[in-house]
Protein backbone atom coordinates (compact mmCIF):
# COMPACT_ATOMS: atom_id res chain seq x y z
CA UNK A 1 0.00 0.00 0.00
CA UNK A 2 2.96 2.29 0.56
CA UNK A 3 3.76 4.37 -2.51
CA UNK A 4 7.32 4.58 -3.74
CA UNK A 5 8.19 7.55 -1.54
CA UNK A 6 6.10 6.64 1.41
CA UNK A 7 8.81 5.09 3.53
CA UNK A 8 10.54 8.46 3.78
CA UNK A 9 7.48 10.05 5.28
CA UNK A 10 8.49 9.49 8.86
CA UNK A 11 12.14 10.43 8.58
CA UNK A 12 11.55 14.01 9.66
CA UNK A 13 10.33 15.35 12.94
CA UNK A 14 6.93 13.86 12.42
CA UNK A 15 4.83 12.46 15.17
CA UNK A 16 1.99 10.14 14.37
CA UNK A 17 -1.45 10.47 15.87
CA UNK A 18 -4.09 13.13 15.67
CA UNK A 19 -3.94 16.34 17.66
CA UNK A 20 -6.59 18.94 18.30
CA UNK A 21 -6.65 22.04 16.11
CA UNK A 22 -4.30 24.46 17.76
CA UNK A 23 -3.85 27.64 15.80
CA UNK A 24 -0.83 29.49 17.06
CA UNK A 25 -1.67 33.06 17.89
CA UNK A 26 1.30 34.80 19.45
CA UNK A 27 3.08 31.54 19.91
CA UNK A 28 0.26 29.86 21.77
CA UNK A 29 -0.62 26.33 20.80
CA UNK A 30 2.71 24.58 21.02
CA UNK A 31 4.55 26.63 18.44
CA UNK A 32 8.13 27.70 19.01
CA UNK A 33 7.01 30.99 20.47
CA UNK A 34 7.57 33.55 17.73
CA UNK A 35 3.94 33.24 16.67
CA UNK A 36 5.04 32.42 13.14
CA UNK A 37 4.53 28.69 13.22
CA UNK A 38 1.71 26.37 14.22
CA UNK A 39 1.06 22.76 15.05
CA UNK A 40 -0.90 21.07 12.31
CA UNK A 41 -2.22 17.58 11.85
CA UNK A 42 -2.74 16.42 8.30
CA UNK A 43 -3.48 12.91 7.14
CA UNK A 44 -1.51 12.07 4.03
CA UNK A 45 -2.36 8.93 2.08
CA UNK A 46 -4.02 7.50 5.16
CA UNK A 47 -1.23 8.29 7.61
CA UNK A 48 -1.72 11.13 10.11
CA UNK A 49 1.20 13.51 10.55
CA UNK A 50 1.48 16.13 13.25
CA UNK A 51 4.05 18.77 12.47
CA UNK A 52 5.14 22.18 13.68
CA UNK A 53 5.03 24.16 10.45
CA UNK A 54 6.10 27.67 9.59
CA UNK A 55 2.86 29.49 8.77
CA UNK A 56 4.32 30.27 5.33
CA UNK A 57 4.54 26.57 4.45
CA UNK A 58 2.19 25.66 1.62
CA UNK A 59 0.93 22.10 1.29
CA UNK A 60 3.13 21.41 -1.74
CA UNK A 61 6.32 22.22 0.16
CA UNK A 62 5.13 20.29 3.19
CA UNK A 63 4.58 17.21 1.03
CA UNK A 64 7.84 17.50 -0.87
CA UNK A 65 10.23 18.89 1.74
CA UNK A 66 8.85 17.69 5.07
CA UNK A 67 7.33 14.36 4.06
CA UNK A 68 9.56 13.49 1.11
CA UNK A 69 6.58 12.91 -1.15
CA UNK A 70 7.91 14.35 -4.39
CA UNK A 71 5.10 13.11 -6.65
CA UNK A 72 3.28 16.44 -6.65
CA UNK A 73 5.42 18.78 -8.74
CA UNK A 74 6.23 22.47 -8.51
CA UNK A 75 5.74 24.05 -11.91
CA UNK A 76 4.71 27.67 -11.50
CA UNK A 77 4.16 27.88 -7.72
CA UNK A 78 1.31 30.32 -8.51
CA UNK A 79 -1.78 28.27 -9.22
CA UNK A 80 -1.35 28.46 -12.97
CA UNK A 81 -0.06 25.08 -14.16
CA UNK A 82 -1.73 22.34 -12.10
CA UNK A 83 1.45 20.26 -11.66
CA UNK A 84 0.95 20.41 -7.87
CA UNK A 85 -2.61 19.07 -7.96
CA UNK A 86 -3.53 16.73 -5.07
CA UNK A 87 -6.83 15.74 -3.47
CA UNK A 88 -7.80 17.34 -0.14
CA UNK A 89 -10.81 15.67 1.48
CA UNK A 90 -11.47 14.16 -1.94
CA UNK A 91 -11.42 17.44 -3.86
CA UNK A 92 -8.69 18.37 -6.32
CA UNK A 93 -6.76 21.50 -5.39
CA UNK A 94 -3.52 23.30 -6.27
CA UNK A 95 -1.30 22.46 -3.31
CA UNK A 96 1.07 25.37 -4.06
CA UNK A 97 -1.50 27.94 -2.92
CA UNK A 98 -2.77 26.25 0.25
CA UNK A 99 -1.19 27.22 3.57
CA UNK A 100 -0.61 23.98 5.46
CA UNK A 101 -1.80 25.50 8.77
CA UNK A 102 -5.22 26.13 7.27
CA UNK A 103 -5.54 22.41 6.44
CA UNK A 104 -5.38 21.17 10.04
CA UNK A 105 -7.58 18.06 10.26
CA UNK A 106 -7.72 17.46 6.50
CA UNK A 107 -7.00 14.27 4.60
CA UNK A 108 -4.69 14.59 1.60
CA UNK A 109 -4.22 12.08 -1.21
CA UNK A 110 -1.20 12.44 -3.46
CA UNK A 111 -0.24 10.40 -6.50
CA UNK A 112 1.83 8.18 -4.17
CA UNK A 113 -1.40 7.22 -2.40
CA UNK A 114 -3.21 6.01 -5.52
CA UNK A 115 -1.28 2.85 -6.28
CA UNK A 116 -2.92 -0.06 -4.56
CA UNK A 117 -1.99 -3.68 -5.17
CA UNK A 118 -5.67 -4.63 -5.24
CA UNK A 119 -6.54 -2.34 -8.09
CA UNK A 120 -3.93 -3.04 -10.75
CA UNK A 121 -5.50 -4.75 -13.72
CA UNK A 122 -2.40 -6.80 -14.39
CA UNK A 123 -1.16 -7.12 -10.87
CA UNK A 124 1.32 -4.27 -11.10
CA UNK A 125 -0.40 -2.49 -8.22
CA UNK A 126 -1.04 0.68 -10.17
CA UNK A 127 -4.27 2.62 -10.04
CA UNK A 128 -6.28 2.01 -13.23
CA UNK A 129 -5.72 5.63 -14.29
CA UNK A 130 -1.96 5.29 -13.83
CA UNK A 131 -2.12 2.12 -15.92
CA UNK A 132 -4.14 3.96 -18.58
CA UNK A 133 -1.56 6.77 -18.73
CA UNK A 134 1.13 4.15 -19.40
CA UNK A 135 -0.97 2.25 -21.93
CA UNK A 136 -1.91 5.40 -23.82
CA UNK A 137 1.56 6.92 -23.66
CA UNK A 138 -0.08 9.99 -22.11
CA UNK A 139 3.14 11.86 -21.33
CA UNK A 140 6.59 12.61 -22.58
CA UNK A 141 8.71 14.10 -19.78
CA UNK A 142 6.15 13.12 -17.13
CA UNK A 143 6.48 16.31 -15.10
CA UNK A 144 2.80 17.23 -15.34
CA UNK A 145 1.60 13.62 -14.99
CA UNK A 146 0.98 13.34 -11.22
CA UNK A 147 -1.04 16.54 -11.37
CA UNK A 148 -2.94 15.36 -14.46
CA UNK A 149 -3.82 12.09 -12.76
CA UNK A 150 -4.99 13.64 -9.49
CA UNK A 151 -6.90 16.30 -11.41
CA UNK A 152 -8.59 13.72 -13.63
CA UNK A 153 -9.66 11.68 -10.59
CA UNK A 154 -11.12 14.81 -9.03
CA UNK A 155 -12.86 15.73 -12.27
CA UNK A 156 -14.38 12.26 -12.67
CA UNK A 157 -15.79 12.54 -9.15
CA UNK A 158 -17.17 16.01 -9.79
CA UNK A 159 -18.93 14.92 -12.98
CA UNK A 160 -20.39 11.90 -11.20
CA UNK A 161 -21.69 14.22 -8.48
CA UNK A 162 -23.47 16.28 -11.15
CA UNK A 163 -21.14 19.27 -11.20
CA UNK A 164 -21.46 21.06 -14.54
CA UNK A 165 -18.56 22.58 -16.47
CA UNK A 166 -18.31 25.49 -18.88
CA UNK A 167 -19.15 23.19 -21.79
CA UNK A 168 -22.07 21.40 -20.11
CA UNK A 169 -25.42 22.28 -21.67
CA UNK A 170 -26.89 24.89 -19.29
CA UNK A 171 -30.25 23.16 -19.76
CA UNK A 172 -28.95 19.81 -18.45
CA UNK A 173 -30.85 18.74 -15.34
CA UNK A 174 -29.03 19.68 -12.11
CA UNK A 175 -27.96 16.89 -9.79
CA UNK A 176 -27.55 14.19 -12.47
CA UNK A 177 -24.13 12.80 -13.38
CA UNK A 178 -22.60 14.62 -16.36
CA UNK A 179 -21.34 12.29 -19.13
CA UNK A 180 -17.64 12.95 -19.73
CA UNK A 181 -17.36 13.56 -23.46
CA UNK A 182 -14.00 14.55 -24.92
CA UNK A 183 -15.03 18.20 -24.77
CA UNK A 184 -15.93 17.80 -21.13
CA UNK A 185 -12.61 16.12 -20.31
CA UNK A 186 -10.64 18.82 -22.11
CA UNK A 187 -12.52 21.63 -20.38
CA UNK A 188 -12.36 20.04 -16.94
CA UNK A 189 -8.62 19.42 -17.23
CA UNK A 190 -7.80 22.88 -18.56
CA UNK A 191 -6.18 23.74 -15.23
CA UNK A 192 -3.41 21.23 -15.98
CA UNK A 193 -0.86 22.40 -18.50
CA UNK A 194 1.41 20.00 -20.37
CA UNK A 195 4.42 21.62 -21.99
CA UNK A 196 5.05 18.42 -23.94
CA UNK A 197 1.60 18.66 -25.49
CA UNK A 198 0.46 15.18 -24.52
CA UNK A 199 -3.13 16.37 -24.34
CA UNK A 200 -4.74 14.04 -26.92
CA UNK A 201 -3.37 10.96 -25.18
CA UNK A 202 -4.28 12.30 -21.75
CA UNK A 203 -7.90 12.61 -22.89
CA UNK A 204 -7.80 9.02 -24.18
CA UNK A 205 -6.34 7.73 -20.92
CA UNK A 206 -9.10 9.41 -18.94
CA UNK A 207 -11.74 7.99 -21.32
CA UNK A 208 -10.33 4.51 -20.67
CA UNK A 209 -11.23 4.58 -16.98
CA UNK A 210 -14.69 6.11 -17.24
CA UNK A 211 -17.40 3.91 -15.74
Amino acid at each position, binding site marked *: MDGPHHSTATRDDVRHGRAAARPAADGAGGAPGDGHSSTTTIEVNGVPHTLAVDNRRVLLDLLREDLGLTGAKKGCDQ*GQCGACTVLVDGRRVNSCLLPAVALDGSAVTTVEGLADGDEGTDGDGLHPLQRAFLDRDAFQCGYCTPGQICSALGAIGEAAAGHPS*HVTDPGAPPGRPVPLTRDEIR*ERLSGNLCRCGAYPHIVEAVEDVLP
Partner: protein
Amino acid sequence: MKPFAYVRAGSLQEAADAFTARPGARYLAGGTNLMDLMKLGVEQPEALIDVSRLPLDTVEELPDGSLRVGATVRNSDLAAHPVVRDRYPALSRALLAGASGQLRNVATTGGNLLQRTRCPYFQDVTKPCNKRSPGSGCGALEGVHRDHAVLGHSEHCVATHPSDMAVALAALDARVELYGPGGARTVPAARFHRLPGDHPERDTEILPGELVTGVVLPALTAGLPSAYRKARDRASYAFALASTAAVLEVTDGAVSHAGIAFGGVAHRPWRARRAEEALLGATPTRAAFEEAVDLELSAARPLRDNAYKVDLVRNVAVDVLAGLASRTPDRV
Protein backbone atom coordinates in the same frame (compact mmCIF):
# COMPACT_ATOMS: atom_id res chain seq x y z
CA MET B 1 7.67 35.85 2.02
CA LYS B 2 7.63 37.65 5.37
CA PRO B 3 6.75 35.56 8.44
CA PHE B 4 3.23 36.04 9.74
CA ALA B 5 1.01 34.91 12.60
CA TYR B 6 -1.96 32.66 11.95
CA VAL B 7 -5.28 32.86 13.78
CA ARG B 8 -8.30 30.72 13.05
CA ALA B 9 -11.49 32.65 13.74
CA GLY B 10 -14.31 30.70 15.39
CA SER B 11 -16.93 33.41 14.95
CA LEU B 12 -17.46 36.67 13.11
CA GLN B 13 -16.82 38.59 16.29
CA GLU B 14 -13.56 36.71 16.87
CA ALA B 15 -12.47 37.54 13.34
CA ALA B 16 -13.30 41.23 13.72
CA ASP B 17 -11.60 41.38 17.13
CA ALA B 18 -8.49 39.69 15.75
CA PHE B 19 -8.34 42.35 13.08
CA THR B 20 -8.72 45.17 15.60
CA ALA B 21 -5.79 43.69 17.50
CA ARG B 22 -3.71 43.46 14.32
CA PRO B 23 -4.68 46.07 11.73
CA GLY B 24 -1.92 44.78 9.44
CA ALA B 25 -3.68 41.42 9.15
CA ARG B 26 -5.54 39.97 6.17
CA TYR B 27 -8.49 37.64 6.19
CA LEU B 28 -7.71 34.27 4.61
CA ALA B 29 -10.44 32.39 2.77
CA GLY B 30 -9.33 29.99 0.01
CA GLY B 31 -6.02 31.81 -0.30
CA THR B 32 -5.88 31.36 -4.08
CA ASN B 33 -5.34 35.07 -4.64
CA LEU B 34 -3.88 36.11 -1.30
CA MET B 35 -1.13 33.45 -1.15
CA ASP B 36 -0.18 34.23 -4.74
CA LEU B 37 0.16 37.94 -3.89
CA MET B 38 2.11 37.12 -0.73
CA LYS B 39 4.56 35.04 -2.74
CA LEU B 40 4.97 38.00 -5.08
CA GLY B 41 5.54 40.36 -2.16
CA VAL B 42 2.52 42.46 -3.12
CA GLU B 43 0.80 41.52 0.15
CA GLN B 44 2.85 41.38 3.35
CA PRO B 45 0.36 40.82 6.17
CA GLU B 46 1.58 40.58 9.78
CA ALA B 47 -1.10 37.96 10.38
CA LEU B 48 -3.63 35.85 8.54
CA ILE B 49 -7.04 35.57 10.13
CA ASP B 50 -8.50 32.37 8.73
CA VAL B 51 -12.21 32.87 8.05
CA SER B 52 -12.61 29.80 5.85
CA ARG B 53 -14.21 27.73 8.64
CA LEU B 54 -16.73 30.33 9.76
CA PRO B 55 -20.27 28.97 9.51
CA LEU B 56 -20.90 30.91 6.30
CA ASP B 57 -20.81 27.91 3.99
CA THR B 58 -24.49 27.49 3.13
CA VAL B 59 -26.86 28.53 0.36
CA GLU B 60 -30.29 29.30 1.82
CA GLU B 61 -33.62 30.11 0.25
CA LEU B 62 -35.17 32.98 2.20
CA PRO B 63 -38.94 33.37 2.76
CA ASP B 64 -39.12 36.41 0.45
CA GLY B 65 -37.95 34.32 -2.50
CA SER B 66 -34.35 35.54 -2.44
CA LEU B 67 -31.30 33.30 -2.15
CA ARG B 68 -28.56 33.92 0.40
CA VAL B 69 -25.08 32.62 -0.42
CA GLY B 70 -22.57 32.48 2.43
CA ALA B 71 -19.14 34.06 2.00
CA THR B 72 -17.25 30.78 2.37
CA VAL B 73 -19.30 28.75 -0.12
CA ARG B 74 -16.80 27.43 -2.64
CA ASN B 75 -17.13 28.62 -6.24
CA SER B 76 -17.54 25.06 -7.58
CA ASP B 77 -20.34 24.27 -5.13
CA LEU B 78 -22.14 27.51 -5.91
CA ALA B 79 -21.90 26.89 -9.67
CA ALA B 80 -23.36 23.39 -9.19
CA HIS B 81 -26.11 24.40 -6.78
CA PRO B 82 -29.47 23.31 -8.26
CA VAL B 83 -31.29 26.51 -7.25
CA VAL B 84 -28.55 28.70 -8.72
CA ARG B 85 -28.50 26.71 -11.96
CA ASP B 86 -32.26 26.87 -12.19
CA ARG B 87 -33.00 30.47 -11.15
CA TYR B 88 -29.78 32.39 -11.72
CA PRO B 89 -28.07 30.59 -14.61
CA ALA B 90 -25.86 33.62 -15.37
CA LEU B 91 -24.19 33.19 -11.99
CA SER B 92 -23.48 29.50 -12.49
CA ARG B 93 -22.20 30.15 -16.02
CA ALA B 94 -19.96 33.02 -14.88
CA LEU B 95 -18.40 30.91 -12.15
CA LEU B 96 -17.77 28.03 -14.55
CA ALA B 97 -16.10 30.42 -17.01
CA GLY B 98 -13.54 31.41 -14.37
CA ALA B 99 -10.25 29.86 -13.29
CA SER B 100 -9.91 26.03 -13.23
CA GLY B 101 -11.64 23.11 -11.52
CA GLN B 102 -8.92 23.02 -8.84
CA LEU B 103 -9.14 26.74 -8.13
CA ARG B 104 -12.94 26.80 -8.05
CA ASN B 105 -12.89 23.98 -5.48
CA VAL B 106 -11.03 26.30 -3.10
CA ALA B 107 -12.07 29.84 -4.08
CA THR B 108 -14.88 31.33 -1.99
CA THR B 109 -17.68 33.80 -2.69
CA GLY B 110 -16.07 36.46 -0.49
CA GLY B 111 -12.57 35.92 -1.81
CA ASN B 112 -13.75 35.96 -5.41
CA LEU B 113 -15.39 39.38 -4.91
CA LEU B 114 -12.25 40.73 -3.24
CA GLN B 115 -9.63 39.30 -5.59
CA ARG B 116 -7.21 41.93 -6.86
CA THR B 117 -6.53 43.01 -10.42
CA ARG B 118 -4.30 40.90 -12.70
CA CYS B 119 -2.53 44.04 -14.01
CA PRO B 120 1.09 42.87 -14.46
CA TYR B 121 2.48 46.11 -12.99
CA PHE B 122 0.39 45.63 -9.87
CA GLN B 123 1.85 42.14 -9.49
CA ASP B 124 5.48 43.25 -9.99
CA VAL B 125 6.80 45.12 -6.95
CA THR B 126 9.67 46.59 -8.99
CA LYS B 127 7.22 48.54 -11.20
CA PRO B 128 5.30 51.76 -10.51
CA CYS B 129 1.66 51.19 -9.63
CA ASN B 130 -0.73 53.57 -7.90
CA LYS B 131 -2.95 50.75 -6.77
CA ARG B 132 -0.15 48.90 -4.96
CA SER B 133 1.90 51.93 -4.00
CA PRO B 134 -0.16 55.15 -4.14
CA GLY B 135 1.68 58.03 -5.80
CA SER B 136 4.22 55.84 -7.61
CA GLY B 137 2.51 56.29 -10.98
CA CYS B 138 0.68 53.95 -13.33
CA GLY B 139 2.94 51.71 -15.36
CA ALA B 140 0.14 50.52 -17.58
CA LEU B 141 -1.16 53.92 -18.72
CA GLU B 142 1.58 54.26 -21.37
CA GLY B 143 2.87 50.69 -21.03
CA VAL B 144 1.44 47.26 -21.75
CA HIS B 145 -2.30 47.76 -21.45
CA ARG B 146 -3.94 45.58 -24.04
CA ASP B 147 -5.94 43.85 -21.28
CA HIS B 148 -6.90 47.05 -19.48
CA ALA B 149 -9.98 49.23 -19.11
CA VAL B 150 -11.94 51.12 -21.76
CA LEU B 151 -14.63 52.47 -19.44
CA GLY B 152 -14.53 54.47 -16.21
CA HIS B 153 -10.74 54.54 -15.79
CA SER B 154 -8.71 57.50 -14.56
CA GLU B 155 -5.20 58.76 -15.27
CA HIS B 156 -4.27 57.14 -11.96
CA CYS B 157 -5.31 53.60 -12.83
CA VAL B 158 -6.57 51.77 -15.91
CA ALA B 159 -6.89 48.30 -14.38
CA THR B 160 -9.85 45.96 -14.76
CA HIS B 161 -11.49 43.81 -12.12
CA PRO B 162 -10.86 40.16 -12.99
CA SER B 163 -13.88 38.44 -11.43
CA ASP B 164 -16.42 36.75 -13.67
CA MET B 165 -18.74 36.01 -10.75
CA ALA B 166 -18.98 39.68 -9.77
CA VAL B 167 -20.23 40.59 -13.24
CA ALA B 168 -23.14 38.18 -12.93
CA LEU B 169 -23.93 39.42 -9.41
CA ALA B 170 -24.04 43.01 -10.69
CA ALA B 171 -26.42 42.15 -13.55
CA LEU B 172 -28.67 40.10 -11.25
CA ASP B 173 -29.08 42.96 -8.73
CA ALA B 174 -27.45 40.98 -5.94
CA ARG B 175 -26.46 42.63 -2.67
CA VAL B 176 -23.26 42.12 -0.71
CA GLU B 177 -23.60 41.59 3.04
CA LEU B 178 -20.88 43.08 5.22
CA TYR B 179 -20.05 42.84 8.91
CA GLY B 180 -17.58 45.00 10.76
CA PRO B 181 -16.77 47.10 13.77
CA GLY B 182 -19.56 49.47 12.70
CA GLY B 183 -22.15 46.66 12.55
CA ALA B 184 -23.77 44.88 9.62
CA ARG B 185 -24.76 46.53 6.33
CA THR B 186 -25.48 45.59 2.73
CA VAL B 187 -24.28 47.21 -0.49
CA PRO B 188 -25.61 46.56 -4.02
CA ALA B 189 -23.16 44.29 -5.85
CA ALA B 190 -23.12 46.73 -8.78
CA ARG B 191 -21.78 49.43 -6.46
CA PHE B 192 -19.55 47.25 -4.28
CA HIS B 193 -16.54 47.70 -6.56
CA ARG B 194 -15.36 51.27 -7.16
CA LEU B 195 -14.05 53.23 -10.09
CA PRO B 196 -10.40 54.18 -9.57
CA GLY B 197 -10.63 57.98 -9.56
CA ASP B 198 -7.95 59.45 -7.30
CA HIS B 199 -7.84 56.37 -5.07
CA PRO B 200 -7.11 53.24 -7.11
CA GLU B 201 -5.74 51.59 -3.96
CA ARG B 202 -9.36 51.11 -2.92
CA ASP B 203 -10.95 48.41 -5.07
CA THR B 204 -14.27 48.26 -3.24
CA GLU B 205 -16.48 50.00 -0.69
CA ILE B 206 -15.37 47.59 2.05
CA LEU B 207 -13.91 49.28 5.16
CA PRO B 208 -10.74 48.09 6.89
CA GLY B 209 -11.56 45.05 9.01
CA GLU B 210 -14.99 44.57 7.47
CA LEU B 211 -15.92 41.04 6.43
CA VAL B 212 -18.04 39.89 3.56
CA THR B 213 -20.55 37.54 5.14
CA GLY B 214 -22.50 36.67 2.02
CA VAL B 215 -24.37 37.80 -1.06
CA VAL B 216 -28.14 37.86 -1.53
CA LEU B 217 -29.68 37.18 -4.93
CA PRO B 218 -33.05 38.91 -5.10
CA ALA B 219 -36.46 37.44 -5.87
CA LEU B 220 -36.73 40.17 -8.55
CA THR B 221 -34.40 38.37 -10.97
CA ALA B 222 -35.07 34.78 -9.84
CA GLY B 223 -36.10 32.56 -12.72
CA LEU B 224 -35.72 35.23 -15.42
CA PRO B 225 -33.71 34.20 -18.47
CA SER B 226 -30.08 35.13 -17.78
CA ALA B 227 -26.74 34.30 -19.36
CA TYR B 228 -23.02 34.99 -19.21
CA ARG B 229 -20.56 35.01 -22.07
CA LYS B 230 -16.84 35.59 -21.90
CA ALA B 231 -14.32 36.35 -24.66
CA ARG B 232 -10.74 35.37 -23.83
CA ASP B 233 -7.42 34.54 -25.44
CA ARG B 234 -8.01 30.78 -25.27
CA ALA B 235 -11.11 28.65 -24.93
CA SER B 236 -10.60 27.90 -21.25
CA TYR B 237 -8.59 28.97 -18.20
CA ALA B 238 -7.95 32.61 -19.09
CA PHE B 239 -9.22 35.89 -17.71
CA ALA B 240 -11.89 37.83 -19.60
CA LEU B 241 -10.89 40.28 -22.29
CA ALA B 242 -14.55 41.24 -22.37
CA SER B 243 -17.66 39.60 -21.04
CA THR B 244 -21.36 40.24 -20.51
CA ALA B 245 -23.86 39.03 -17.96
CA ALA B 246 -27.46 39.84 -18.70
CA VAL B 247 -30.94 39.11 -17.44
CA LEU B 248 -33.89 39.92 -19.66
CA GLU B 249 -37.64 39.82 -19.17
CA VAL B 250 -40.05 40.36 -22.03
CA THR B 251 -43.72 40.97 -21.32
CA ASP B 252 -46.33 41.37 -24.09
CA GLY B 253 -43.62 41.76 -26.69
CA ALA B 254 -41.74 44.52 -24.88
CA VAL B 255 -38.70 44.47 -22.59
CA SER B 256 -39.99 44.73 -19.02
CA HIS B 257 -36.69 44.16 -17.20
CA ALA B 258 -33.08 44.33 -18.37
CA GLY B 259 -30.00 43.95 -16.18
CA ILE B 260 -26.76 44.13 -18.16
CA ALA B 261 -23.18 44.15 -16.86
CA PHE B 262 -19.89 44.12 -18.79
CA GLY B 263 -16.77 42.41 -17.43
CA GLY B 264 -13.10 42.83 -18.31
CA VAL B 265 -13.53 46.41 -19.46
CA ALA B 266 -13.52 48.50 -16.27
CA HIS B 267 -12.30 48.75 -12.70
CA ARG B 268 -15.61 47.23 -11.68
CA PRO B 269 -18.33 45.16 -13.29
CA TRP B 270 -19.82 47.78 -15.59
CA ARG B 271 -23.55 47.95 -15.11
CA ALA B 272 -24.88 49.25 -18.44
CA ARG B 273 -27.65 51.48 -17.07
CA ARG B 274 -28.03 53.60 -20.19
CA ALA B 275 -28.49 50.54 -22.35
CA GLU B 276 -31.00 49.12 -19.87
CA GLU B 277 -33.04 52.34 -19.86
CA ALA B 278 -33.01 52.46 -23.65
CA LEU B 279 -34.32 48.90 -23.79
CA LEU B 280 -37.15 49.25 -21.29
CA GLY B 281 -40.40 49.08 -23.23
CA ALA B 282 -38.59 48.40 -26.51
CA THR B 283 -39.29 45.49 -28.83
CA PRO B 284 -36.43 43.02 -28.24
CA THR B 285 -34.85 42.97 -31.70
CA ARG B 286 -31.16 42.69 -32.54
CA ALA B 287 -31.27 46.25 -33.86
CA ALA B 288 -32.65 47.50 -30.56
CA PHE B 289 -29.91 45.67 -28.66
CA GLU B 290 -27.21 47.09 -30.95
CA GLU B 291 -28.54 50.60 -30.50
CA ALA B 292 -28.73 50.29 -26.73
CA VAL B 293 -25.26 48.77 -26.37
CA ASP B 294 -23.75 51.39 -28.69
CA LEU B 295 -25.34 54.10 -26.57
CA GLU B 296 -23.68 52.63 -23.49
CA LEU B 297 -20.34 52.32 -25.25
CA SER B 298 -20.38 55.92 -26.45
CA ALA B 299 -18.76 56.55 -23.03
CA ALA B 300 -15.81 54.27 -23.88
CA ARG B 301 -12.33 55.81 -23.90
CA PRO B 302 -9.97 53.12 -25.15
CA LEU B 303 -6.24 53.32 -24.46
CA ARG B 304 -3.56 53.23 -27.18
CA ASP B 305 -3.65 49.43 -27.57
CA ASN B 306 -7.06 48.21 -26.46
CA ALA B 307 -9.65 49.78 -28.78
CA TYR B 308 -10.48 46.22 -29.89
CA LYS B 309 -12.26 45.73 -26.57
CA VAL B 310 -15.01 48.19 -27.48
CA ASP B 311 -16.04 46.11 -30.50
CA LEU B 312 -15.51 42.88 -28.61
CA VAL B 313 -17.73 43.76 -25.68
CA ARG B 314 -20.33 45.18 -28.07
CA ASN B 315 -20.54 41.95 -30.04
CA VAL B 316 -20.57 39.77 -26.94
CA ALA B 317 -23.30 41.88 -25.31
CA VAL B 318 -25.53 41.98 -28.38
CA ASP B 319 -25.18 38.21 -28.82
CA VAL B 320 -26.05 37.54 -25.20
CA LEU B 321 -29.12 39.78 -25.36
CA ALA B 322 -30.30 38.38 -28.66
CA GLY B 323 -29.83 34.87 -27.31
CA LEU B 324 -31.93 35.67 -24.25
CA ALA B 325 -34.66 37.29 -26.38
CA SER B 326 -34.87 34.21 -28.59
CA ARG B 327 -35.45 32.08 -25.49
CA THR B 328 -38.25 34.28 -24.23
CA PRO B 329 -41.62 32.80 -25.16
CA ASP B 330 -43.14 36.26 -25.38
CA ARG B 331 -40.93 37.37 -28.20
CA VAL B 332 -42.69 39.18 -31.07
